[in-house]
Structures are given as structure tokens and as C-alpha cells.
């Protein structure tokens, strides 16, 4: 077994790190985090270097690389700054659905725009804020003269108000069929008539991303906008979620690493009671715990990504990678806030937004309870 990155992987990681370090500037960045203004320029610069579509096929202007390379880039971005990382990475959230489930006519329409850092995607899956189970989707898409007519409401859509297109999980079969059956993923242009949007409200973290709720009222799209196989929307949605969980896990990993590095550097500089903080055994042990906690998450994320690229990442592996990485981000950023004392609470010292972003990542793409349900299903099958 080899535990070394390939040379191109190392190069990507290094290049992304350098990009992030040079472009994510503390003062501007804190201002963005505070105001939630989107760093459109930085995204375009990232896109020019190919960082907005590392894992898209080349035919859509992507890098043609794997999820592993995406993971390495995501980790570096979030390590440099979690909020900036989330801002750049989540802008394309959901666009994978346009190429993962087979050729689709909408892919050339949107993906190059995403790859260029100009377009954003809105994944419109959830309808119930408190329940992340997708099988309860009720938004309907009914065939009518070669079109699909969509009616329903979605909540908590990332890039909700700024997206150029949406990936909407719809019920394409009769309502009485029962939950989860006959769903389909449908690409919907943001300019289509009948979409009404309003902000889902400000968020705790991920503050560069706008979340919105949407109502679809007789929204018409061409039939061929169905992504993947009609009626297989739930399976596709869950498959996408596996990929999204590995992506989120990578962001969490970077968030943990970034918080750890800030804390380590703080305790090396800061004096108290006549000694540097890092000389106190209790502080040292906290650093060691943080280090070991990150170590315990990192390989799981990498191995899930590697398995995904080989086509073999099962649901529980992706879920476990995210569960561990998100928990590690929470614990490590929590400890970082603690280690910085009063400064940990201050925006200026950054770790406070790492902590808020960690919580956001923990709940996005599946809170712990949903991940545990998925893992348990992998172990014992579904319960009755």
C-alpha cells in the first residue's frame, strides 16, 4: 500500500496553497466574512487556474481530474481560510449532477460557465428544514407537451438567489405512490418563469454563500432537462450526496487544519505567567489531541475520495468520512477558540469563523444523525 500523493497531486496541492495564501488576504477577507459579500473576482481568478472545476470532464472545460484532486484543493483552500474556501467551493455545489449520471444536454449550457467561475448552481433538494430525508420530496414535475411543469417549494438552497441554474429533485410519478418512488433530478434555468425566491435568512457560517428558499409555480423546462434516468432521482440524489459528503469532509478537514495551525502559532507566541503558553503541559496535550484528531480524519477522507474515483465508494464510507471529518473540525476549532482565550472570540483572530464554519459543515450535506443512519444501513441493512 502506498500512502504517497502522486507528483501531479502534490503539485496541485502546492499550487492551490500558494494561490490561497496569496489571494485570501486577512483584512479584505474579514470584511467579506462580516458582510457576506461574495468574492467574485477571486473566484474568477481561481477559475482561470482551473480550480473551480478540477473534477469536471475536460469537454466541459473542467480539469478532468478526480475527486481526490478536488479534495486536496478543497483542504488547502479551507485551511487557508474556511469561509473563503466554502465561498469558492460551494458556488458549484450540485453541478456534478449535470455530468455524473450520463450525458445531458444541459451540461454544455452550464458547466463551462461554472468552470469559468461565472455561473453558480443551486441544488434544490430539501423541502423540510428539520428533516434531511430526501424520500419525502413532494415538488412535482409533470410531463405536458414535451415539457416538464414543476410545482412545489424548496428550502435552504445554497447559492439560492445567485444561481444561474438549479438542480431540482422532483416527484415525476403520481403522489399516491409513496415516499421516494419515481423521483427525478431536473435542471432548471434560473430565468425560467414562475420561480419565486426569498432568502432563507442569514447563516451561522459559510457566510459568503447565500441560501434561499424557492417556490416553483408552473415552471416549464424541456423534458430533456431530466438528469440521469427518469424516476431514479432518489438514487441519483443519494449518489450525489455521497460525493458531496466527501467534498464537505475535505472542507471540514481543511477547516480543522487551519484552526489547529492558528492555535499552534498563537500558543507559541503568547506568554502568560512568565512562560510561553506552549510550555504548559496541559496546552501541549491539547495541541497533541488536536493533531491526533485531524490525523484520525484525514486518511478516511482521502481513502473515500480514492474509492470514489475508482467507482467503489459505498455510502457508509462516504458517510463515515464526513462524520469523522466534521467532528474533527468541530472539536479542533472549538479547542482553538478556547486556546486563544478572549482573542478566540474576536473576529480578528479568525478562529471564531472557523468554528462557525465547522458547525455549518457538520450540518450541511447531512447532520450526524443522518450519517449514522446511512452507516448503520451499510452494516445491518435497513430496519423494518
Amino acid at each position, binding site marked *: 500500500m502506498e500512502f504517497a500523493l502522486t507528483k501531479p497531486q502534490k503539485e496541485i496541492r502546492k499550487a492551490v496553497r500558494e494561490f490561497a495564501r496569496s489571494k485570501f488576504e486577512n483584512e479584505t477577507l474579514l470584511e467579506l466574512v462580516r458582510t457576506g459579500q461574495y468574492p467574485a473576482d477571486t473566484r474568477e481568478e481561481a477559475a482561470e487556474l482551473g480550480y473551480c472545476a478540477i473534477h469536471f470532464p475536460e469537454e466541459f472545460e473542467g480539469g478532468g481530474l478526480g475527486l481526490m484532486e478536488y479534495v486536496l484543493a478543497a483542504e488547502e483552500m479551507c485551511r487557508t481560510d474556511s469561509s473563503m474556501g466554502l465561498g469558492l467551493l460551494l458556488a458549484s455545489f450540485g453541478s456534478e449532477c449535470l455530468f455524473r449520471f450520463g450525458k445531458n444536454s444541459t451540461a454544455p449550457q452550464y458547466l463551462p460557465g461554472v468552470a469559468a467561475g461565472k455561473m453558480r448552481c443551486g441544488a434544490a433538494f430539501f423541502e423540510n428544514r428539520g*428533516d434531511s430525508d430526501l424520500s*419525502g420530496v413532494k415538488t412535482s414535475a409533470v410531463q405536458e407537451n414535451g415539457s416538464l411543469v414543476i410545482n412545489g417549494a424548496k428550502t435552504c438552497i445554497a447559492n439560492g438567489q445567485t444561481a444561474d441554474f438549479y438542480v431540482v429533485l422532483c416527484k415525476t410519478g403520481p403522489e399516491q405512490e409513496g415516499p421516494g418512488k419515481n423521483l427525478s433530478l431536473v435542471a432548471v434555468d434560473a430565468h425560467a418563469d414562475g420561480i419565486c425566491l426569498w432568502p432563507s435568512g442569514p447563516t*451561522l457560517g459559510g457566510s459568503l454563500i447565500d441560501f434561499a428558499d424557492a417556490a416553483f409555480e408552473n415552471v416549464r423546462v424541456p423534458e430533456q432537462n431530466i438528469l440521469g434516468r427518469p424516476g431514479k432521482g432518489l438514487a441519483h440524489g443519494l449518489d450525489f450526496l455521497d460525493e458531496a459528503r466527501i467534498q464537505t469532509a475535505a472542507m471540514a478537514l481543511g477547516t480543522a487544519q487551519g484552526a489547529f495551525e492558528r492555535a499552534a502559532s498563537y500558543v507559541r507566541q503568547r506568554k502568560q505567567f512568565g512562560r510561553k503558553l506552549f510550555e504548559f503541559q496541559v496546552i501541549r496535550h491539547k495541541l497533541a489531541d488536536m493533531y491526533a484528531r485531524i490525523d484520525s480524519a484525514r486518511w478516511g477522507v482521502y481513502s473515500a475520495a480514492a474509492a470514489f474515483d475508482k467507482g467503489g465508494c459505498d455510502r457508509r464510507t462516504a458517510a463515515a468520512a464526513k462524520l469523522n471529518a466534521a467532528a474533527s473540525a468541530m472539536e479542533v476549532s472549538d479547542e482553538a477558540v478556547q486556546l486563544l482565550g478572549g482573542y478566540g472570540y474576536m473576529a480578528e483572530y479568525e478562529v471564531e469563523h472557523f468554528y*462557525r464554519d465547522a458547525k455549518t459543515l457538520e*450540518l*450541511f450535506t447531512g447532520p450526524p444523525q443522518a450519517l449514522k443512519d446511512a452507516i448503520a444501513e451499510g452494516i445491518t441493512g435497513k430496519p423494518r
Partner: protein
Amino acid sequence: MQILNYTSQHREFRHRMREFLEKEIVPYIGQFEEQHITPKWAWRALGKEGFLCTAVRPEYGGMGGDFLYSVIASEEMAKTNHTGLASSLHSDIVVPYIEAFGTEAQKKKYLPSCVSGDIITAIAMTEPDAGSDLAGMTGTAEEKNGEIVLNASKTFISNGINADLVIVAAKDAGVSDPYKAVSLFLVEDGAPGFKRGRKLEKMGFHSQDTAELFFTNCRIPAENRLGEKGAGFGMLMEKLQQERLMTAVGAQASAELMLDYTTDFCKQTKDHAGKPISKHQAASFALVEMSTEIKLGRTFLDKLIAEHAAGEHVVVETSMAKYWITDLAKRTSQRCTQLFGEYGFFEDCPVVRGFRDVRV
């Protein structure tokens, strides 16, 4: 068995304060949070109704209430789910220094306005480079021509912008033993050389005006020393028990509040099959586990409140309570947000403000 014996007067006070807060304060909290400060009118309204400094003796304008009134006021304030009206800091931490250590003249001058809310107080101990290490403090005070000249930078000062009166800790540069060098001083708004820095941008506590304070050759009258010269350290130690206890009181109330919000949410929110989330076994166990921990904290705290009220020396136990209960509040905030699912990272999720505020 009730550890704390609240009388009907206590209960009436609690009821009256709750009603007042709900009607007069809660509707404006969103504004306070946005403005990153709680306006002075809110303090005065609180004072006018007798909810500030309940412990101050009647001869100085207070109601001379026992410690349970302080606990009630602090709990009811915590239940408003915001921290800007830091009345417990004012009433139970800062003002007691004046009442305990002030001269008759100082008490006469300041206490009535503290009770009425016309004076908002702050305490300035922490320095940017010393943190919680009081002995490492570098701010100095010198006596010159019957005046005291202060030079110090203080940070993380709650009520820093609003404060009309600040208790400042500083060292006599001439005394080498750090434990004998610290004195406390009363610095009024407008004292020459006293400047407020920026309001600090924070993770939470948005309705509270935390600030840096600068004293640059700041001159105050010699009679503004609070307590004996060099006795600062001892005074701070003497008040530690109540300070820690009040921190624990606030954190406990906050944990209870978050659990209530979360329990309500889980009961009211249904999954796609129409089943309330609270009936999902994992959620219901989580609620039970949290409520067990919270009850443990409550019992431990109530006993300490009773002991503190009875004048017992329980400084070790209050440290334990502060450590354990603030951690409890943090854990509770982390676990409660999970039960909200994706909704748990939206600001209008009712435990999110607590998630940010408990980290202070």
C-alpha cells in the same frame, strides 16, 4: 426537596421582571444585536423598575434584596436569549466592589445612579498582553499632586462603550511584589486621557458593546481610589466567588433555555412521514441525556447558591461549577444545533445565538 427556598416575594419579583422583559425589552433585541450595542434607555428602564442592583442597601437607593434576587434577575435576563443588557455584570459583579470597598462618599455619589441605571458600570482588568494573568498586568497608577495618573490599555471590556463609570485595576510601579502592587480606581466617563477604542467584532454577544479602553496619562482625583492602596488583588480575590457563581448561573440558565427551544422544535417538527422528530429514538435519547446533565448542573448550582447566600466559603466549588457548567452550556449548544438538522446553521434557529454567545 427544594434546595433554594424562594419566597412568594421572590416569585412575584421573578414574574414581574419576566413580564417587563417580554413587553419592554424582547421586542427590541433584534435591533440591539444588529447595532452591536444595547441603548442606554434599556438600562434605565430596567433600573426604573427596580431590576438593577437589587442587593444595594436602601440607604443607597437599592432594595437591599438577598442573593436570590440577584439570581432571579440574572436568570430572567438569560432567558431573554441575549447578552447586551449585561445587568448581572453591572449589578452582581461591578457594583458590589463599590458597595463593599467604597468610602461613604463614593457610595453616596455613585450607588443611587447605579441602581437607577443612570450609571452603567464596567470593570477593566484584562490587558492585551496579560490575559487572565493578573500578576502580569502592566498598567500603572502614580500619585502626582493629589491626583492619580493612570496609564493602561485594557481589552475585552464588557459595557465598554456604554460605561459611565469604570473600575480600573492598575499597578503602583514602585511596588515590586505584583500581589501588593495592584489598586482599583473609579474612572468616570470624560476623565481626561480616558479613551474608548473600537467596539470589538466578536463571534457572538452582538448586542453587547465589548471594547478596548485606553488610559493615557489619565488624571483622576486621588479620592477615586477604591479601597486601600495595594489591596486590589485581595479585593479581586474576595469577589471571585460571586463572579464565578454568577457566570455559572448565566450559563446554566442558557443551557436550560437551549434545551427548551430544542425540545419544542423536536416536538413540533414532523418528518416526511408525519412523525414528530422527538419520537425518533436517537433524538429522544439525546434530549434525555442532555436534560440529565442539565439537572446535575442545576442541583450542584442551587446548592452553591444556597451556600454562597449563607456566606459560606465555597470558592473551589464555584470554580468547579463555572468550569463544568460553562462547558455544559457549550456542549448543549453543540448538540442542540445538531437536532435541528440543516436548520441548525441558520440564524433564526433559536439555539444559534446561544451557540455563539456561550463561547465567550
